Structures are given as C-alpha cells and as structure tokens.
C-alpha cells in the first residue's frame, strides 16, 4: 500500500473516557428531544407509592413500623431502579436493529465503550427520576432519620444497585431482538423483583412459599440496608440473608454485574 499514512497503534485495553462520554452524550440529547423516557421510570414507582402508601396504608400493618410510607419508600426507590431495565434494553436493541451498532463496531473504538455509554446515560436519567421520587416521598411523609452521611450512603447504594441492574437491561437488549418481548420482560423484572421482596410487606405477611424467595431476593437485602441507613425501620426477619445483608448485597450485585457486563460485551463483539 502506498497510502498507509496512519501509524499502527495498540488497542487501548479499556473503553476510552472520550468514547463513553460521546455515546452517553448522544443518549442525553435524545432524552431532551424525547422526554417520555423519564415519565416511564418515574411514574412506575410513583404509582406504587400512591397506591400502597396512600390508598392502602391504613389497611396494612407492619410490625415494628408505625409509618407505612417510610417502610415502603426503599422498595419504591428500587422499583424505580428496576423500571429502567426495560427502557435501557430497548435503547440498546434499537441501536442493534437500526444498524448503529454495526457502524460503531466498524469504528476503531473500544468494544465496551458503546455499552458503558448507554449505562452511564441511563444511570443519569435514573438519577433524575430518583430526585422526582424522593421529592414525592418527602411530600407523602417519608423522612430519613439518621443524619446526612447515612442518608447519602443509602442513596449511594441506590446508585450502585441501579448501575448493576442497568447491565441486565443492556444484556437483554443485546440478546433479544423483539421489542415487544423486551418491553414485557422489562415490565416483569420491575414488578416481580420488587414485589417478591420484603419491600412492601414484612416477610411473615407474605404467603409461605414466597417467603424464601423474598428473603433470598437480593433486592430485599438492598431495601433493608437502605431502610436501615435511612432509619425507616430496623431490618426484620431471620435467616442468612437477613442476618448478612452486606455480604448478600456484595456477592449478588458483584456477580450480577460481572456476568451481565461480560456477556453483553461478548455479544457486542460478535453481534
């Protein structure tokens, strides 16, 4: 070749910050033109908060907690995080179908930058949703009781949880092509994982066969850790997950992140 004017370069091992920011910036620009995306992830938890915390609150008695809105708030927040799984999956699947992933893959950019960019953008979008949910929570009577640092630590945990479940969305989007299926699966994730937890009822109020599922559901551990940090009722229940919430959170979220991110990037490489 006589036109070889570009010196060869080594592939950077990780996604470059520039590339990730470019992709995340693109998603945020899209959000500005199509803010409907925000409605979905804020409406879902808000409906739960209003339905359970306002309409049913007098009918539901939680032992050891006098304020039902405070009891369910952590669960509502996690539901908001889980509600972002479907939209993330759809955003990724649309990029695959529209040929954008092919274009990105034909560029000399890192193989993970596009997916990380999606996650970063969706994390920011979820944070906006979180602010709205917190505002409504305060309006409905939720209060943190343990001071600034534990409260912030609780929100830090929400961010980590959201980041992790968004990778589930990315994997769904890379693995499934039918948008309607993705939408149903995403909706199922948001409902099943939040309701089959100790987020809205204490374990002993749940049907017997669901109790072990709710106890071992990592979402329960995250919820009770947040409740603890926000002073919204001490963790209840017995058994390994209830007694070792940090360990369960660390292992389950760590594994989930590892598996979903590795599988997603592998799928992206071979799409």
């Amino acid at each position: 070749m006589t036109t070889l004017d570009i010196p060869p370069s080594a592939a950077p091992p990780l996604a470059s910050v520039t590339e990730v920011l470019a992709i995340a910036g693109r998603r945020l620009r899209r959000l500005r033109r199509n803010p409907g995306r925000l409605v979905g992830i804020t409406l879902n938890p808000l409906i739960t908060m209003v339905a359970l915390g306002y309409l049913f609150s007098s009918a539901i008695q939680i032992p050891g907690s006098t304020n039902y809105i405070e009891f369910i708030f952590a669960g509502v927040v996690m539901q908001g995080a889980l509600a972002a799984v479907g939209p993330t999956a759809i955003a990724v699947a649309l990029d695959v179908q529209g040929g954008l992933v092919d274009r990105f893959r034909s560029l000399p950019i890192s193989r993970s930058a596009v997916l990380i960019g999606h996650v970063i953008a969706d994390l920011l979008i979820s944070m906006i949703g979180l602010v709205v949910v917190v505002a409504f929570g305060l309006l409905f009577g939720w209060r943190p009781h343990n001071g600034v640092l534990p409260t912030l630590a609780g929100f830090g945990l929400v961010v980590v949880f959201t980041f992790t479940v968004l990778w589930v969305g990315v994997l769904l989007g890379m693995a499934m092509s039918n948008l309607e299926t993705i939408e149903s699966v995403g909706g199922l994730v948001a409902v099943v994982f939040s309701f089959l937890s100790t987020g809205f009822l204490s374990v002993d109020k749940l049907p017997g066969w669901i109790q072990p599922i709710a106890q071992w559901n990592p979402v329960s551990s995250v919820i009770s850790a947040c409740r603890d940090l926000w002073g919204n009722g001490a963790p209840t229940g017995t058994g390994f997950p209830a007694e070792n919430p940090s360990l369960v959170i660390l292992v389950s979220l760590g594994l989930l992140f590892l598996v979903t991110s590795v599988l997603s990037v592998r799928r992206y490489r071979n799409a």
Partner: protein
Amino acid sequence: MDLAIEVTGLRKTYDKTEALRGIDLSVRTGSVLGLLGPNGAGKTTAVRALATLLVPDGGQAKVAGFDVVAQPREVRRRIGLAGQNAAVDELLTGRENLVLLGRLLHLGGAGARRRAQELLERFDLVAAGDRPVGTYSGGMRRRLDLASCLVGHPQVLFLDEPTTGLDPASRQSLWNTVRGLVADGMTVLLTTQYLEEADYLADQIVVIAAGQVIADGTPDELKRKVGQEWLEVAVALPDRVAAAVAVLAPLAVDEPSTDPVKGLVKLQLRDGMDGIAAAAVALRDAGVDVADFALRRPTLDDVFFNLVGRQPQG
C-alpha cells in the same frame, strides 16, 4: 498491482447454512468493485467479514493491507461502512450525528465540529444539518449515512446496497457522489441488486450466488461472455413475423428467435454492418413494415439471467 482488498478462499457458515463457500476477490486501490448477486447469495456476509463485523471460518482477507482477523483495529481505522439501513440516529440532527462520530474517532470537540461542517457542505446537507434526521427524505438519509462513513477519512468504503429504496433522482445523485469519492482515490466495494448500478459505477464486477463466485470481469467482459450484439426487428403487423423470418434467416448465424405476440424477430447477424444493410433491404423488398429496427447489446440483466438462471430479485 496495488490491492486495497485481497480475499482468498473466504468461508463462513451460519449454523448449517454455508453463506460463503470460498470467495476470492481482489480490488485495486482507487477502483470500484461491484458485488452482484440475488438475495441470500452471501453479499452482505462478505461485506460484514471484510468490515470486521464477523469473523470468517476460513480463508484470508486483507483490507488496506491489514488482515481482518489478525488486525481488525488497523482495518477499522481505514474503512467506512454503510450498511443496508441508514445507520443514523433519528432523534439527533444530521450535524449531531456527524459530530458524534468525530468525537468517537477522537477528533476532539472542535475537530469533530469542523469535520461535520465539511461533510455537510460536501453532501449538500447544510440547510438540513440542524434538523432531526427523522425529518429527512430517503435520499438525504443516505447522503448523511455516506457522510458518516467518511468522518475518519477512510481509504476503503463498503456500501451494502446503497441505493435500495431510493427514487431515481436520489439514486443518480448518490452515484455521482460515489464517483466523486473514487475520483479522489477512494476504493469502493459495493453490493447491489441493480445491474444498472453496477454497470454505471463498477470497474470490476463479481457475481456471486449461493456463496460462490460464478463470474467476474469488467461489465463489458461479462456482457461479452453472454453473447454478441443482435438485431431486433419489430414488425408493424404481428402476422408478418413469418415473412420477416423468411427473409432474415439467410443473414443470421442461427435460426432467428421470434416473439409473435409482440411481433419481434431477434437474430445474430452473420456479418456486422453489411448484415444490417442487407437486413434492411431484405425487409423492404419483402414489403414488411417495420416499427423498430435496432442493434441490441446484452445488458447486465441478461448476464444475470444467463448466469443465475432465474429472474434477479429486487
């Protein structure tokens, strides 16, 4: 010879379907290769393998001097790919799409904006540059898609069915753009189902079917393979076909073929220009009124028919 694309024995199997069964291609730097074939022939698979989107099962492929399997990153730095769908973000403006790619290619903010402006100007998209792509016409989207391929100054361009679904005017404008790029030294591999397109743009044509190369050559070579030019006579009154055949047969290489419904007589003349004159005189002397009298050459459609043995799908 300076080759921008060198492919030998490229093979790819999906599940149990052999999409590519050992394809050889070579494309000179600065030339256009038209990859022609019916649906499912393996055109897109070949492009995807060359653009490093999929790893072939066998064979070797070098693009811009680098092996697509061993050095995909080096290949990616030198190629542009326009797939079958215009791969642009509908919600972003044309300019934003181009700036995004510039940023991804590490041109920096100012560099990306400058490159976007250059490309918008070159592709006549300045006026539409700040509108969301969702409002663009098909032709504008294709132009933006092509512009998107060029952000990183590639040496080799892959165009997978670049004009599918475009109206004739947009198609012509895209063809002119491609010719302009080639004039600037770009190497282009384009797949198409439109024989006219390959005829117009390609220096070399490779016809593939069922994952194999079944013919290659320049458009003229392929046409010559199919046959010589022939005389086509349309008689004014269909019942005069027999009379026309009677006087024309002595001038033809083989028995003339006829289409009694359309009143057509086709024959290959024995001796060129003299044959044409003789045929005209013979028809006049026999009193056959002629509606059309023309020397026809095979089109690439004839080539396609001849090679693939069925109607090309489009």
